[in-house]
């Protein structure tokens, strides 16, 4: 009896092996960001046709500069969403970092280093608070981070009550410049973050984030320290928001106490566009970054296509829905196989 049942089971796994292979390839294609990358490249090609100057290195760099803050914020958010949480505090963190850099500018490369560390510290601190509230005090993440976001917005307004101040020139010029006139520095920063993610992904923590996001209870019973992992996810997110604030300041060169707010919903859209599931446990940073880049690029494409700006919103909304429907359908086909 045992023999034949094992046989039956093994033939079952064997028989569907090929389909499964195809399905998992498809799933990886959607969730690993290849789909959104393809979308991005197609969109860029259209943009290049509509606006030949878009292919010059200056325009590419400008686009990169524009993309970097959103991309970094979305990347940070991905950490939290992977672990099945929400994080609204990004708006607050970015605002605080921005006004801090504008009120206390530090010149030179040393100053820039100090500034970046300061932003990371601010983001890490807020992330740690979020992490404690969510992991140990068991608050609902959307509510806890809403509260921290409001508080952070207040802190930003206390530091600077009206737009003003100047971000250090070294940061403003070097961080938005091109290396050897070609490679945009902001792009390198994003790449560096992705590099760190590739490493992190391969640590126990990286795997644990996915485990916690997919099934918290099972992860806990498997020995994963769920609370620590959650905490870590919020801290990592905070650090990236800090970096996003830094890059935003480099671009706008000034302090705006509410500068983080416009990035809030866009970051969520970028993450979802990248195919990361809001239910946790699947997706990745790379896809979110490309998702953010796509959102930024889409505006450019709509501009150069000459769409009346009264209606650009409609196109954006429809594209957002179509992109997600497409990736959902692909995943469903994958799951069906």
């Amino acid at each position: 009896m045992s023999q034949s049942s094992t046989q039956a089971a093994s033939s079952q796994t064997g028989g569907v092996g090929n389909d499964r292979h195809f399905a998992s390839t498809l799933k990886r294609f959607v969730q690993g960001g290849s789909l959104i990358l393809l979308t991005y490249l197609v969109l860029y090609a259209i943009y290049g046709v509509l606006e030949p100057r878009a292919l010059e290195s200056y325009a590419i760099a400008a686009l990169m500069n524009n993309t970097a803050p959103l991309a970094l914020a979305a990347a940070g958010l991905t950490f939290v969403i992977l672990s099945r949480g929400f994080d609204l505090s990004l708006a607050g963190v970015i605002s605080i970092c921005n006004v801090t850099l504008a009120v206390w500018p530090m010149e030179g490369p040393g100053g820039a280093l100090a500034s970046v560390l300061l932003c990371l510290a601010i983001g890490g601190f807020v992330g740690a608070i979020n992490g404690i509230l969510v992991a140990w005090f068991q608050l609902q993440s959307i509510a806890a981070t809403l509260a921290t976001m409001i508080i952070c917005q207040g802190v930003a307004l206390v530091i600077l009550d009206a737009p003003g101040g100047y971000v250090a020139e070294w940061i403003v010029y070097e961080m938005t410049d091109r290396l050897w006139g070609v490679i945009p520095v902001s792009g390198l920063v994003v790449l560096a973050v992705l590099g760190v993610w590739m490493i992190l992904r391969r640590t126990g923590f990286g795997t644990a984030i996915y485990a916690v996001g997919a099934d918290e209870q099972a992860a806990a019973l498997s020995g994963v320290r769920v609370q620590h992992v959650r905490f870590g996810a919020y801290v990592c997110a905070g650090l990236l928001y800090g970096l996003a604030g830094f890059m935003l300041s480099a671009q706008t060169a000034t302090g705006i106490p509410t500068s983080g707010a416009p990035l809030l919903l866009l970051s969520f859209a970028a993450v979802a566009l990248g195919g990361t599931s809001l239910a946790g446990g699947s997706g990745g940073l790379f896809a979110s970054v490309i998702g953010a880049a796509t959102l930024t690029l889409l505006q450019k494409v709509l501009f150069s296509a000459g769409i009346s700006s009264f209606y650009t919103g409609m196109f954006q909304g429809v594209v957002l829905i179509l992109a997600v429907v497409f990736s959902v359908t692909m995943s469903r086909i994958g799951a069906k196989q």
Partner: protein
Amino acid sequence: MTVAGDQQDKQMSLSQTGDQRKSSRVSRETISAISVAVLCVILLLGARFVSPSLGSWSQVETVLVLGSFLIVLSFGQGLVILTGGLDLSLPAVVTLGGILATNWVGATDPGAWYLLIVVLLICAGVGLVSAIGIVWLRVPPFIMTLAMSIIVSSALLGYTRGTPRGGAPEVALALMKSKMLGMPTPILFVIAFIIIAALFQSRSVPGRYLYAIGTNADAARIAGVPVVLMQILPYVISATCAGLVGIMLVGYSNGATLRMGDDYLLPSIAAVVIGGSSILGGRGTFLGTVGGALLLTTLGTIISAIGLQIGLRTIIEGAVVLIALLLLRDELFQKLGSLWR
């Protein structure tokens, strides 16, 4: 363990067959609804320390009138959250309701109350479109409603060419500006709304179905709940409520702007969550949400009376929300519950 002890044990357990464990009589949601209400009253009374005129009946009236928008709006948001979704299109639909009420109804025939019903139907249609995207196309609610929000806002911009016109329809004015039985009509209206909405959510058949879907849609389907219909319903109700809020706002301030709904998105979510609902769905009561909405509005009136710079006021506001959340935690109630016992 001795044999004698064994024997004794056996006898004892034979005589008392069943276990004596009880369920806690008061549900978690009821407790949190009550505590939010208590917190609200404490805030109101405590407000006297901020300004002697606060904590009076007139402040309560102000809170109720200003809170009515949030209460109506968070009913819809609460239903959506109950089924495990989230409605980000509320601001745009509020604006849609307001703009249609002024630009169309107000500008063509301010007395035509029946046109307002058409306005509400149009808003409901927006909800229906969101729901279709979510249920059939499997777009996550977050994205679908966000996209709808962008689309509706853009359509409104195009429709008005940027300039909202016209005044409020007469019904809207009558609803928000008149007095009945010595009380501002909006207060009576919102009380009636609360009663109906609370009955709907906790006692009606569709309301019970929504809870079932929120806890486990698969199981609800097998139990014979019309899952698809019930997944669509909250979005439609939510959009209709948002349209109603748009009309109320138009009646309140006799005009519409293209961003009139924007300030209500996060508060509508916050009211629901502070009121004890789970963002994952399946748990929460409307009375809790009402408490949450009133708490936020009360806090707003008090905060604006504090003579501090805006940054510090914002910090205080966030801190109070955080403290409320910490106080309303389950764990705390469990501890209290075990002390009670």
